């Protein structure tokens, strides 16, 4: 049946969003990069729950492929529905900019979350963690496991994914400056495919036996590289870290094939997104360090319009059990 149409039931009987802000509750729509991956589904859960607290109507619809064109269709249908606030996690920031302009022209408050569209008309960007924060934490975690030195490689995903590439940049600089005895040997792109990530990680280990570290740059390659280390029976010899969701990383954190997973409280990110939505709908200013129910340490930068969730969250064998997504 109609699986996760979360906001769906709500809208279909509210009948025709043409009224726009007509209904007493503000409607907040969120378009993820891609449906069906735990990361965004968790954001959806968080946003939904927050909306029940804050009294807003949460809509969520994602494309089946991480494809800018497919995403544009959904944004268009939300513009047509005349939602009050529209959040997008753009697959391709540049291509989203003009669409956001259209939405703004249609009187919709537009914002980005998870991934920014810098030169667009978005009012707010809900940022999970600063680029530096993620890049540096990844590096620190890996270095801690590798003992501050050694050669490591990065298994990234989509060649064109902007945020991944920016994190990799930080890792390069930070490693060079902070860990002179460590070096990044190679960066490979496995797409969104776990098995490819695993195979590439294996090949990297084989081509360079002195390799002692691997980074899985996205939620599909993080467990992938850990799996490769486990298969190669190199647990302990080769350390891995990555950006993996709790459930997918748990088994690897437990058997040590993954040292740590660097992420953030994704459900909290969803909640923060919802909250920001209500603020935008009500047209209220966001304070420098706002009071967000249930979320600590949120900061807001006025002139860049970036609402920061906080420091990255480091998942280890000890705390991974606390999250379920």
């Amino acid at each position: 049946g109609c699986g996760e149409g979360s906001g769906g039931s709500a809208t279909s009987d509210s009948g025709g969003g043409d009224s726009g802000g007509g209904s007493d509750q503000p409607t907040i729509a969120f378009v993820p990069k891609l449906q069906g991956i735990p990361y965004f589904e968790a954001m959806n859960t968080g946003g939904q729950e927050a909306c029940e607290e804050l009294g807003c109507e949460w809509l969520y619809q994602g494309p089946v492929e991480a494809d800018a064109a497919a995403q544009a269709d959904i944004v268009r249908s939300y513009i047509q529905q005349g939602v009050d606030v529209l959040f997008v996690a753009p697959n391709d920031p540049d291509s989203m900019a003009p669409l956001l302009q259209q939405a703004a022209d249609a009187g919709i408050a537009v914002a980005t979350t998870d991934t920014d569209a810098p030169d667009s008309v978005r009012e707010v960007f809900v940022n999970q963690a600063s680029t530096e924060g993620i890049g540096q934490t990844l590096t620190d975690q890996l270095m801690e496991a590798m003992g501050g030195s050694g050669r490591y490689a990065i298994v990234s995903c989509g060649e064109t994914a902007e945020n991944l590439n920016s994190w990799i940049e930080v890792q390069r600089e930070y490693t060079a400056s902070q860990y002179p005895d460590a070096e990044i040997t190679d960066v490979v792109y496995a797409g969104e495919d776990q098995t490819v990530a695993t195979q590439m990680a294996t090949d990297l280990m084989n081509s360079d036996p002195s390799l002692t570290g691997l980074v899985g740059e996205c939620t599909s390659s993080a467990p992938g590289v850990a799996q490769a280390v486990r298969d190669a029976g190199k647990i302990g010899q080769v350390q891995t870290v990555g950006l993996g969701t709790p459930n997918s990383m748990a088994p690897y954190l437990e058997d040590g094939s993954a040292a740590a997973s660097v992420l953030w409280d994704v459900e909290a990110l969803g909640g923060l997104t919802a909250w920001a939505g209500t603020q935008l709908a009500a047209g209220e200013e966001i304070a420098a360090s706002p009071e967000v129910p249930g979320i600590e340490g949120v900061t807001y930068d006025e002139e860049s319009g970036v609402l920061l969730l906080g420091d990255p969250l480091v998942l280890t064998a000890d705390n991974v059990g606390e999250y379920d997504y």
Partner: protein
Amino acid sequence: MTTSTTPPPAPAPEKQQPGAATDRPEGLPARLLRILLTQRIALLVVLLVAVLITMTTLSGNNYLSAPYDSSYLAATLINAVPLVLLGLAELLVITSGRGGIDLSVGAIVSLTGMVFGFAYGEWGWSLFPSLVLAVAFGALCGALNGVLVAYLRFPALITTLATYYAFSSLALVINDQQPINARPIQELYSTARAVEVPFLPDAVPAVPLGVFTYLVPAVVVIWLVMARTTYGRRLYAIGTNDVAAEWTGIDVRRTRFLAYVGAGALSGLVAVYTVAQFASARPDAGVAGNGMALPAITIAVLGGVAITGGIGRVAGVVLATLLIVWLNAGILLAVPGNAGTQFQLFALGFVLVFAALLNGFANRRYGGTS
């Protein structure tokens, strides 16, 4: 049952009997039914109308999450542009026969998009020369397919599969997998943005400019080529029976070669359009997700283009595109949440299989061209 690259042993059209050959004339209703079932164009029109009526009624009774109105339909046309253009590209090559097909159009879009990005975004060329360059470069990629298929007699499916791999790889390597989003390119979006139709602003809703700058010209040109020029005739001839065409004195190779060049040129045009629509030249523009090739082929086939060659019309491609685009747009409003985008897959698959089976059955029952 037979292959994509050999002429059919006895294709449906073979069986056609002239209606006049019938001993007793059939009644008007029977006649209409036969036309509806055997003529793909007619079937598509009916389906399209059905979709529009159903959706508007649903919308009227507030079953949809937003009005399914003309302005929305107009806005969604922005997707129709690349689909139609690439559908026409497939029309050219599939009609040329001998298993003609082009899996590489999406990859050509990616690669050409990057080339255009360089010219317009980085080398500071002005729009028109850059556009010409893009179309020419696309044609060049098509020419590579054409030489292999038409002159060296490589099977089209494999050739274009190979060039698909090659072009998409080059598109990524050429700029170190970075998209090009220089200022001029971001402003280029204006050529795709929705505009009021001049002269009759209120009557007609705002239609994406791309429909006028890209789609309409391309459709008209290809229609003229296929239906009104001697080249079109040669294309249908070689698609129907290229041995006979050879004996007739038609330059089979050149005709087929040009079909692939044309497909490449259209892909080049799509590349420019995609760059404009996305305000950036992305190295994976044409191959992201399922890529652009499979949808284009699907559209062509749905539009009644016979995979065995020699049959196919521009109108079919256009109608098939409108059907799919407007059906998908409706589904997004009718089915909220992730299920919405999932049902789009169902709709596409179902319509394709349904139409193919129906016409297949009808052609055996009545004997008529698809």
